């Protein structure tokens, strides 16, 4: 289990990083590496170049956004205590991997990796968050709703780097709950659900049971049942499609109840 050969570039500035990405067709960005390097070791990925952004100074910021939001730079680790200021991140991060992998894994890296069974993409969508991406061509924002296109696939162009994720704060009176079902502590979820109650609005997002984290329109009176009709999970070694539907039913009900309690 050893990676194929690749070139290694370690830029010291964002501009250098973006030029490196512009110069190669099949470069991969190396941030925390907690998903990328296993895939390299298994030779599932064979990039020609790795662009290691861990020394880019601009990317280590955690700042307050212009609106009420937390802006998290691309190098910020999942264990970074500055993230606990954000209630959604504080709720979700303990479920992301393990203590040791959070020391290295980054928030933005997990989002850019776009594994539907990972917590952070779902959380960004639950918050109605945004990804800020940059390339040598310029900078743009992509809403979470438009970011995730498929398993491990995002709307980022090949030369773009996810430089920041923007996490809107919960508002006074909002209720939020997150639940995941995994077979062991720290495993990828078999199913996970985040629910946000804001006034009469109910925002429910499911992950791991659809190709991308997905916003569902749920009936407030029978949230779980209405959610099930909107997912078409595939079976796996861990359960049948019916089982995954059941998890959606149960977790949506549980999160909605909890989110409503919080809002009350």
């Amino acid at each position: 289990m050893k990676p194929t050969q690749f070139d290694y570039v370690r830029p010291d500035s964002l501009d250098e990083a973006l030029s490196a990405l512009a110069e190669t067709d099949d470069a991969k960005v190396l941030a925390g590496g907690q998903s990328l390097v296993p895939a390299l070791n298994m030779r599932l990925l064979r990039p020609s170049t790795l662009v290691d952004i861990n020394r880019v100074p601009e990317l280590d910021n955690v700042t307050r956004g212009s609106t009420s939001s937390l802006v998290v730079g691309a190098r910020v680790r999942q264990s970074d205590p500055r993230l606990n200021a954000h209630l959604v991140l504080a709720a979700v991060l303990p479920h992301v991997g393990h203590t040791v992998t959070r020391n290295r894994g980054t928030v933005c890296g997990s989002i850019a990796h776009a594994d539907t069974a990972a917590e952070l993409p779902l959380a960004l969508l639950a918050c109605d968050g945004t990804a800020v991406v940059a390339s040598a061509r310029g900078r743009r924002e992509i809403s979470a709703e438009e970011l995730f296109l498929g398993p491990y696939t995002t709307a980022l162009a090949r030369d773009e780097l996810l430089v920041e994720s923007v996490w809107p704060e919960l508002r006074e009176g909002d209720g939020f709950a997150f639940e995941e079902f995994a077979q062991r502590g720290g495993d990828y979820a078999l199913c996970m659900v985040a629910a946000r109650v804001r006034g009469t609005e109910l925002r429910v997002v499911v992950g791991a049971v659809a190709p991308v984290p997905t916003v569902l329109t749920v009936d407030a009176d029978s949230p779980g049942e209405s959610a099930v009709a909107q997912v078409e999970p595939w079976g796996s070694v861990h359960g049948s499609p019916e089982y995954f539907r059941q998890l959606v039913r149960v977790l949506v009900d549980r999160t909605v109840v909890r989110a409503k309690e919080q809002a009350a």
Partner: protein
Amino acid sequence: MGAKAASEPWVGRPLLRLEDEALLRGEGRFVDDLDPVANARHAAVLRSPFAHANIRRLDPTPALDLPGVVGVLTGADVVELSRPFPAGIDSPTPHYAAAHEVTRYVGEPVAVVVARDRYVAEDALELVDVQYEPLEPVLDAEVAVSSEACASDRSFHYGDVDSALARADLVVRERFRSARWSCTPVECYGVVADWSEAERSLTAWANFQGPFTLHSVAAGALGLPGSKLRLLTPPDSGGSFGIKSAVFAYVVLMGLASRKLGVPVRWIEDRLEHLAASSSSSGRLTHVEAGFTSAGELLALRYDAIEDVGAYVRAPEPATLYRMHGSLAGAYRVQNVAARNRVVLTNTMPSGLNRGFGGPQLYLALERTMTIAANRLGLDPADLRRRNLIRAADFPYRTPSGALYDSGDYGSCLDDALTLAQYDERRAEAEAARAEGRLVGVGMACVVEPSISNMGYITLAEPGEERGLPKSGNAEGCTIAISALGGITVHTATTPQGQGHRTVIAQVVADRLAVEPSDVDVLTEVDTATSPWTIASGNYSSRFSGVGVGAAAAAAERLSEKITAIRAHLGDGSASLRRIAGTVHWNPEALPPGMEPGLAVTAYYAAPNLLPPDADDKVASSGAHGFVADVAVVEVDRDTGEVTVLDYVTVHDAGRLLNPLLAEGQVRGGLAHGVGAALFERHVYDEDGNLLTGSFMDYLAPTAPDLPEPRIAHRESPSPFLPLGAKGLGEGTTMSVPAAIANAIADALGRDDVEPPFTPGRVWELLRQ
């Protein structure tokens, strides 16, 4: 540990381990930490991506062009340079160290690339030009049993099962399935192989664990006399639990690579290779017929077992089916027992030793049957068992299939477990919880834990007239040498992988030589050229505390007698060990007349109660028999199928405990593996024979939050047959836990068709039916 009274022996005390400090400092020496021979090149193995396929073409030439590549060994080379592995029964298809022309499981080696380093070797693997023609795989043992894939079919009869079933008030007829799973040691296999053309011999270092019968198997495949396969094990091995026995096949494969390419070859298995192609438990489907009186007396037991051993019968298979042969009746007095054993090949990884080895499969069937019978008779499962348990006064007890149970008080152990678990209260609570709609259940298992396997039991797989020379091997060896300055060095062939053999042997030797355990250096590296080993040596069937310790005690006693005689001859009763040793080394003239010079003893010890199988197919399959009584309380989440173990109680009687601290560690470790098999672990293949659990992301081994906190108690009924009265205890809970948890889940769900592993997805499928 600190001071002790002068008269108090070291054995029996919870001495802290002598092994620990090196391991804690990172100074352990595992196989990949060694550079035992200069200029070893690194191997990577090309493996079949198909469960069953013809190899139409295999051309290594493109790989040879890659800079850094030394060469390639192909399946064709393997067939030319070696012989098929011998096994306990004839295999329908010859088993070589690599596939040639036909591959039979995903992960089967088809070639070995040797290169400058592992990175380049893996690069070169991708360049080997192979063309496969996929064939239909055989994956369902139940289907395969009626084809040529059935490699063995033997039936055994003890007593009169038919008449007993005919007079039974209740006959339970059920089928039970044990999944394939593996203990997955955290360290994978490793081999360094160095062929000498001049000597026509292979020297190999491998984290092998025995049984050393497999040394003969490897030498046979290489076409070498045993003396020409010098096998060495490193001082440390990162867990095994049976699994590393099968590294022998890679000793042969890498030996052939070294021979063909003329360089020493190092191969360190990676985790993906390990999960696909190292070893695992057998799978077993057992049909049980069990007859009971209305009062709950078990009158007769009949098993019909279909054993899935994977793609080849790889030695020591089909031993999983026979290891428990003497204990087919478990802990019960039933006299009428029959078994039909069929061994079936499927296009999956070959099976082999795995903690519990046959016990989990047997007891899932037997202990589920006992609980089912109790429920159908309206009896408490504990009462039904108590009625049938072998009584304390009956020991030593000969089972109908030939085992000699040495000692025990099964009823008291069960009572201890019930008391500790507050069984009656828990049963009442579970019933009350169920009345409220919760799914809470209580289960139990009573298992006899055999230890010290009789290597002869495997010959039962052949009819009596085909068994060849009688076999009953189980002996272990030990050498103790005292240096001129009085330093004590023990050399054991028990090949530990973490069980603390150094510590226990030091305790045993210290008692006999009147020194401190810290004065005793114990070497656990085995070198088949120099170590005191036998065909049965190694670390399996929980044999250390019986025969491993037996050999150390015998050597120490003989050394002690010699020292005593010298002391007497010198006329100085208080002469120090150092003085005695100096005298022996420097001045043999001073020894008693006729005494052999030297202060070293090699002793061998074999259990005194093991014979080859007899003409009636009875066999004392093990030298000692402990007992385990467990109670499990579980709750099933109706919504998700998730199982929570609310309480787990296990009471053991493994005879005398040599070191209670280490005994506790073995019980906890065995229990963790049992919980893994009960709740998480299973090798899953799809309908094409692709392995779906090929990484640690999908093969789920339990981690700290996933295990219950067991409550453990002991009784000590010393074995009258063994020198220290100690029996094995490393496997009992791996045998008992799946059955106890299955019984608890059946109780919680109110149904009998439950089958481990109880992953939430599988449990929920039961709930929705």
